[in-house]
């Protein structure tokens, strides 16, 4: 049967030569060849060198920002001395530093993922993360001060805050996972890192320090000549012995003795290690400690005329001066070197020096306790050493002078204040902070904590500051009050009274109204809570959440809705 349907297809008569097919087929062939070439080039030439290039770049970036290679455990490129960081290196803009560290961290993450769970790289990543978070914080401060956030809206600021928090969390998470799961030197370093941070925040957990020391003891038992483990142990013992809520005095003495033994065996201790040792030694032999600190500092004093090559060294010199009780010289030393540093280095340096002062303060108190214990044993009580008291006051003065904006001082003080035996130091610190403009309100909160036995008596004292003309103080005070109430239920009444005074003096501080409403609700004082909520609603009529809260409170009070509307209208 023939097909009578006319074909709808186009004409089929065109002739094409083979060369035409070749011409049209060449692009596919060319692209195939190019793809294979790229794969081969990448496999044989790019990938093998990638790790070393990345490591070099990481060290370069970190060095420029000021993270020394000693801080990085993965032995990134210790032979390349050209990359050593120095204060003389070109002062970089903040944004440049951030870009460098972001790049370094990205490369560390990549290396870490390719090395599949390399603890040293993860440790380094955490170190870089924290430094990056510090830089973000610095940028936040800069934006707040310059008022740039008003021009660009709060988006950039929120973005920076979020980045900073994420980096800190990431670092903590990394360090905790290394410290919890793994054994070995990296785990020990992670534990020490956590210990140092906790000590800086005055919340050193004895559990962590004990575990770190036990781990290190285990390492030293199998490898008694492991220099790195010895140094770590020395540092761990030092930190542990100086922690406020750490081991008992007898344990401190024991630790200090072990530290002394180890320090004597370390073949070539660095100045930092000698100073750790001196700090430990101070517990059992202050004079020997001063000698050691002096000896440690000697090589550096001899080069005093020359430029010091790292913030770390400057800190060490300052520390030796503090241990030697050369406070006047220490203060002058700081005054001489601070102007040569960049802003970021200044912040770091001042914080470290202030931390040294506080640690030294604690060491003084511990010495007093040891002496009083000895005196009790000898049944011959001695009056409190007035010279030591003067030293303590001077040290605190210096700490506040060096780092008035440093949060860790406040946190450190919090812990001291919770220990009744250190109430005297707490009160001294509180009054010092209260004199400093920047930290008035936080200090007042601390006063409440330290002197909570006599809250009402002190209320008027801190309200005077909290209701000061500076809005930021009042806001901080209002925020602090609710924290106080959360800390201890019995202080809720005090916090409410505190907030009420702020409300009366500064009614525009809405946070105080909001927090007071919350506390009233917590105390089931619903009419008072309602009053605060009405005030808030009048100030923020578009906020739906307040309306919902009012309705919730009204339901509890069984107040008719009409009445509520009338009240709001008023």
């Amino acid at each position, binding site marked *: 049967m023939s097909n009578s*349907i006319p074909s709808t*297809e186009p004409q089929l008569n065109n002739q094409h030569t083979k060369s035409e*097919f070749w011409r049209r087929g060449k692009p596919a062939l060319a692209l195939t060849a190019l793809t294979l070439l790229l794969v081969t080039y990448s496999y044989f030439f*790019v990938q093998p060198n990638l790790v070393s290039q990345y490591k070099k770049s990481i060290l370069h970036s970190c060095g420029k920002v000021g993270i020394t290679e000693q801080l990085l455990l993965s032995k990134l490129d210790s032979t390349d001395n050209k990359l050593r960081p120095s204060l003389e290196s070109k002062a970089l803009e903040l944004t440049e530093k951030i870009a460098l560290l972001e790049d370094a961290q990205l490369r560390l993450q*990549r290396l870490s993922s390719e090395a599949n769970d390399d603890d040293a790289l*993860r440790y380094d990543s955490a170190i870089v993360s924290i430094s990056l978070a510090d830089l973000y914080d610095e940028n936040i401060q800069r934006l707040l001060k310059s008022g740039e956030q008003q021009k660009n809206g709060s988006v950039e600021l929120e973005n920076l805050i979020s980045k900073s928090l994420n980096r800190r969390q990431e670092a903590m998470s990394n360090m*905790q996972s290394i410290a919890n799961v793994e054994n070995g030197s990296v785990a020990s370093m992670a534990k020490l890192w956590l210990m140092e941070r906790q000590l800086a925040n005055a919340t050193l957990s004895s559990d962590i320090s004990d575990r770190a020391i036990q781990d290190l003891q285990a390492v030293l038992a199998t490898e008694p000549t492991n220099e790195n483990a010895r140094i770590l142990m020395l540092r761990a013992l030092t930190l542990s012995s100086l922690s406020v809520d750490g081991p008992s005095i007898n344990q401190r003495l024991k630790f200090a003795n072990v530290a002394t033994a180890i320090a004597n065996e370390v073949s070539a201790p660095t100045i930092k290690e000698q100073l750790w040792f001196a700090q430990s030694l101070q517990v059992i032999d202050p004079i020997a400690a001063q000698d050691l600190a002096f000896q440690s500092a000697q090589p550096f004093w001899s080069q005093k005329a020359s430029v010091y090559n790292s913030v770390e060294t400057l800190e060490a010199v300052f520390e030796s001066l503090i241990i030697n009780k050369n406070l006047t010289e220490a203060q002058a030393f700081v005054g001489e070197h601070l102007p040569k540093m960049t802003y970021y280095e200044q912040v770091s340096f001042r914080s470290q020096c202030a931390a040294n002062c506080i640690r030294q303060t604690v060491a003084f108190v511990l010495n007093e306790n040891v002496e009083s214990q000895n005196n009790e044993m000898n049944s011959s009580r001695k009056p409190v050493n007035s010279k030591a008291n003067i030293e303590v006051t001077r040290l605190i003065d210096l700490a506040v002078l060096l780092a008035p904006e440093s949060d860790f001082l406040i946190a450190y003080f919090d812990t001291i204040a919770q220990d009744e035996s250190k109430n005297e130091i707490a009160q001294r610190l509180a009054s010092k902070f209260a004199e400093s403009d920047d930290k008035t309100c936080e200090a007042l909160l601390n006063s409440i904590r330290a002197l909570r036995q006599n809250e009402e008596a002190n209320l008027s004292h801190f309200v005077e500051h909290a209701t000061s003309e500076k809005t930021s103080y009042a806001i901080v005070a209002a925020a602090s009050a609710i924290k106080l109430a959360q800390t201890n239920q019995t202080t809720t009444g005090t916090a409410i009274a505190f907030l009420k005074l702020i409300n009366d003096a500064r009614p525009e501080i809405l946070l105080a109204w909001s927090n007071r409403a919350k506390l009233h609700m917590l105390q089931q004082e619903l009419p008072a809570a309602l009053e605060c909520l009405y005030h808030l609603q009048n100030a923020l009529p578009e906020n739906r959440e307040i309306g919902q809260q009012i309705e919730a409170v009204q339901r509890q009070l069984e107040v008719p809705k009409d009445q509520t509307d009338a009240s709001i209208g008023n």
Partner: protein
Amino acid sequence: MSTTDIARDELILNEPSVNPTVIRLWQSRFASPWFLLAVLQLPYVALYLYYLWASTHYQFYPVLMGAVGYLVYSRWSDQSATLAWRRFGFVCGVIGVTLSLFSSVVVSPWLAYLGFALTIVAWLAPATDNRSGASLCYLAWPLFLVWKPPYNDIATADTYLITFLQKLSASLSSPLLDILTIPHYMQGTIITLADRSFGVEEACSGVQSFFAILCIAAMLMVWNRRSLIHSLIVVVSSIVWAIVMNTLRITVIPPASLWLSIDLSHGMPHQILGFATMGLAFWMLYSTDNLLVYWFGSGEADLDPDESVKVARTNKQTWSLIVYPILLLLSISAVVQSLDLQKKAVRLVGGNIFLPLQGDDLPSNINEWQKVSYQQQRRTNDADFGEQSDVWIFQDSDHQATFSLDQTFRLWHDLTVCYGNTGWKIVEQNVVFGDDDQWPVVSAFFERNDGRHAIVMFCLFDRAGQPLEVPGYESWWSSIGNRIAKRFSFDAGDLFREQTCYQAQVFAVIDAEQKSARQDAALALLEVARNQIRNVGLQRLRNENATNERPQSNL
């Protein structure tokens, strides 16, 4: 000639409007019983295609079916194919009709479409090509491209193929970025640069590349009547070109952003880049076909082995085959995106489907968890984590957890695959049941190269607020039995609908040592938050839809 014959001839002559050629044409093409059986299957097929439209990577099927229809019309010859082909067609037809009958019992449009495609094979197999004289059944093969191949109880293979292609393309683009000296870090399918990151979307290996290129390759081979081996090589090359082009597309985005400050990852530039690489892939496909003709000949009987070679198409015709479908795809894509047809198509069934949620729908405290923040995220309608997510962050003493209500999905959604795409590797997975209501909840533990561990717990519920059974935990026979039982119950209508579903999930980074404790805490959070959101969201949705419908009914 008898009187009856004369009367019959007169009757025929008295019908001037019916052309005898047309009658013969009709009889030869459409009088086949297989064609009639295929027509009978159309209701289920239409249902399958209606739901298939929701899968972006299959939205080319109208083009493909139109092309097949056109080719069948233009190439049909009345000559009968060989006995072998007719037998083959008969076997396919029997299987196809059986599948269709079975699909109507268990209400499976997916199975019905397979039966339909096989019946079409049975219809075309006895007919022959008007030029080559071979069986026409080769024209039915492209129809199988739009049938979602089976993989497991949770999803069809195309889903996993997309995931595989995403990962492959992303991993191939990493060495290219290394060659370009761009520092980067690849977490699953997310390329992270120092200050920004780019996600490899499904679209990168979806309609705009792999499936579309595969479709075009199949059509090109069918159109040019290429040999089986030639066709197979070109189809395989289409997969390679799709991957190469996707890799190129992904690789171009970071340097453009870094060096030229041009964001090619979103909006119109992203679309243009996608279409450019797709066009390049089509060109390479065409080029590959030509290369194969150069090396091995066209596979046609009339091909001259000498320098002069007869070919099936002129340049213009071959290009029209490539250009027209592309233009059509572009048009469809543009129309869909501008009118948001996909969403409206779904909404036609039952009004608004998104649960309207707010930050304060969850209380400040759930067990030991304290609410920290809330945000709503909008994405494209084929995004891994759903088109919309309402995300609440909670914090307990040590950890943060994210509760998210992701919407909407059709049937079950395997969330573990999505986390796999972001660099997490699954370590352990099981199904747990809540203490109160015995809802099945998938609990999965993940780890990542950076040493972090995480837990994900998730479950889905439908518009009635009922939990979805976790697939894979019911035997095949029992599943069939349940479907048949439901088919003859009052709820049979449910089987015809692909339910809109909502996914509740809790994600938390955890310490590896505290798996059990964190699982309990996460489950407790998920249960309370899910129940709260389900009640509030569904009620609000019903109210909204009722309010919207009321004025219409008054009219």
